[in-house]
């Protein structure tokens, strides 16, 4: 094995480690929803190749309005699904679509695109 092969091998292993760390161990951008005067927790979520923020912290028992702004026309994100809440909404491109519900249980709930490739997380706290 010559120098070049060793170099490729070592960088390959390092790259694999990096990929694992980067995609599987990182945390997304957290966003905390705030309740406005009307007592609704509101947060704006931008949809573009993912959800920003993709971790949303909510309070239990307070109505939630997530305003999804879809900043792309690419097909993948045209639907957002909250399987635990039985909600599924189509998101017209370049528009804000409100999703309303009230979390009644504490815990972590994922939301995804229609094809489960884009992911976000709701963290419902007491």
């Amino acid at each position, binding site marked *: *094995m*010559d120098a*070049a*092969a060793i170099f*490729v*091998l070592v960088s*390959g*292993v390092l*790259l*694999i480690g990096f*990929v*694992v760390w*980067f*995609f*599987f161990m*990182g945390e*997304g951008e957290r966003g905390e929803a705030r309740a406005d*005067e*009307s007592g609704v927790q509101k947060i704006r979520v931008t949809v*573009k*190749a*993912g*959800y*920003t923020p*993709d971790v949303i912290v909510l309070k239990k028992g307070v109505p939630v309005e997530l305003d999804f702004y879809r900043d792309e*026309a*690419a*097909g*993948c994100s*045209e*639907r957002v*699904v909250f*399987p635990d809440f*039985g*909600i*599924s*909404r*189509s998101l*017209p*491109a*370049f*528009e*804000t679509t*409100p999703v*309303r519900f009230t979390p009644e249980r504490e815990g972590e709930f994922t939301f*995804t695109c*229609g*094809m*489960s*490739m*884009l*992911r976000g997380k709701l963290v419902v706290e007491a």
Partner: protein
Amino acid sequence: MPATTENETSDGVRAAETRRVELPITGETRRVELPITGMTCAACARRVERGLSKTPGVGAANVNFATARATVEYDPRRTDVQRLVEAVEGVGYGTPGALAGDDARAAVEQEEAARRAERRDLARRFTVAAVLSLPVLIIAMSHGRVALFNVWWINWLQLALTAPVVFYSGAPFYSGAWAALRHRAADMNTLIATGTGAAFVYSVVATVAPRLVAAGETTDAGGMTMSGAMTNGMTTNGAAMSGAVMSGAGANAASMNGVPMVPVYFEAASVIIALILLGRLLEARARGRTTDAIKKLLGLQARTARVVRADGRHEDVPVEDLMVGDVILVRPGEKIPTDGVVTEGRSSVDESMLTGEGLPVEKKAGDEVVGATVNGAGSFQFRATRVGRDTVLQQIVRMVEEAQGRRAPIARLADVVSGYFTPVVILVAVLTFVVWFAVAPADVRLAAALVHMVSVLIIACPCALGLATPTAVMVGTGRGAESGVLIRGGEALETAHKVQTVVLDKTGTITEGRPGVTDIVAADGFDEDELLRLAASVERASEHPLGESIVRRAQERGLSFSRVENFRALAGHGVEAETEGRRVTVGNLRMMEERGVHLDGMGERAASLASEAKTTMFVSVDGRAAGLVAVADEIKPESREAIAALKRLGLEVVMMTGDNLRTAETVARAVGVERVLAEVLPEGKAVEVKKLQAEGKIVAMVGDGINDAPALAQADVGIAVGTGTDIAVEAASITLVRGSLRGVVTAIALSRETMRVIKQNLFWAFVYNTLGIPLAAGAFYPLLGWTLKPVYASAAMALSSVSVVTNSLRLRRFKAGLMGRRER
């Protein structure tokens, strides 16, 4: 309209949560609430207020900054919501959804426009990619055999042709990949961008600074540089990886004009981009069609309504401005603009677009009509009972939309896999590069490693996995809605296809749920029509349901009624009157006995009819027995056929009823049901369903949404038989818009077909990826000598998602009705 005020208010409040409220104040003033966006301070609110107040026709405008809402009172004759929105926009603010408000149509149109724009953009990028990558592909495919291409600047030419493909056509992949990366996510774009990017960057380096790449290849001078011939031979010829081929003619012609020639892979980058764009274009087209059903439903809606004002004026009003209580005129052949109750006139209405039932339905005063259905030859007026979001049509559209997003449990594995798919593919690609670099002959290892890595990145198709279930559920539920079968989503579909036992509630499901004439027996000297005509003429004055059934039958036979006099109804006995100078009595046995009518053997006939659970009424004319009419809860005409179809589907059919066993068995025999659960109390129905489930059966319960709700909820699949107007039955996972048992057959057959398509899709997607990725990585090369060039990998990838969507679209051709037979 004091009677309807309460109703309107509650409707209004519901609408406020989502879009806007519109309340009539007086006949001539309306109030609308508009959500306002873009206001940053109280001064903004005042500007919006001023903008609205200046609009002609606006009486008062009040903008609340805290709630970001404007309340506007306006005169509908002088302005409309559209103009109010323009006024708000005119002063620089927005009113999102104010117009789309009551109507999903606008949203769908908008989405459609976005899709069209996406397709146009894709088509442009694809055209550029296709035109420019073709010469690159030809140069690559020539394998140096074409002397014309053996010039020193051939790689530069390829670079010049490929650069626009990468930077313009491929731009969405790179920007998408970058956006995903910022979310620490990887998607299709990541794979395509990395794959084509690697091929392109390597080729650029090989063109601009060939010595650099050559140095990386090996220290062996012989293999270090290659002729133009081999350069491209390697690219497109899998065998180039083998050292044996490399030692051929090309290996010695190491340079041209003193410049070492190293292999380039421009065609990999440009052809891949072209093919994947083509795949996306086809997929976008096909995917657009998966929502055709909703578009079709929304397209049914009328755009205007002819409202009859209190003073008798007729006025054409946009449907979104209709209000509960409006009286609307429908002329022959017109679409009915909203839901309501007929107030005068009569006609037949084609409701097939909502119910899937072919025959027109007769409508007269007091009957309900549903928006989007089509009036026949008559003309009538009706009072609107539901408008905007509350109409049956909009409810159906909403239900279908929601259903289309609900996951089928079968997709759970695919869902989990797609979440991890792309990062894992990247890992496999890196591994492929490292292994090939380590094991391939030294003179070609860089090329071999690169080519295989690119193939792996390009062939992997998470889209096929991701699209497998949702597209099938979408097309399947859409197709169902067109046939009047509303399925709640993937889970309902999946359970429905496993159903073994179907429990049918008798009354209102198998039968009409109201009495109808079953037998007419005429005594000597009378014929049936004469008997029916006389009885009906007398019964027309009564309001008894049994009497109504006689009148209805006479109307069906086209008999004319005669005038009656001295009408008398004796509760619990019958009715009598004089007509055509004769005294006609219609009543039960006791009444006949009291009148001293000699029955002439009619009594025995009545007893035998009674044993079939029919109610008999005797008819006497001038004290002489004229015959009898038997009435029973009529079996719906299609019940027998539908039950036979259910049996053909291999299902056990059970009838459940609160009636006594004798009545129940009569009906069961008539429709061909063997297993009967009779004398079941309403609250016991759920228990009976549970018992069947305890036998290990997967049970579908078919019943109405109100009385049978607990049983529907208890069953694995609750199928609610709608009356055509109440759609959102909570307890049911499937709702039949029109109460025909044919819908049950459609629902179960459709669910089976959809599940079959889902399974095919998932199988194909999994097999494609689990075989394709190792093939592209060259895992089969040591044993079988199989390898895959990046260009073929990209073609396979482009095909895979298209084929999944196309397979789902086959469901659009699903034939509803009775097992493939359909009257439409």
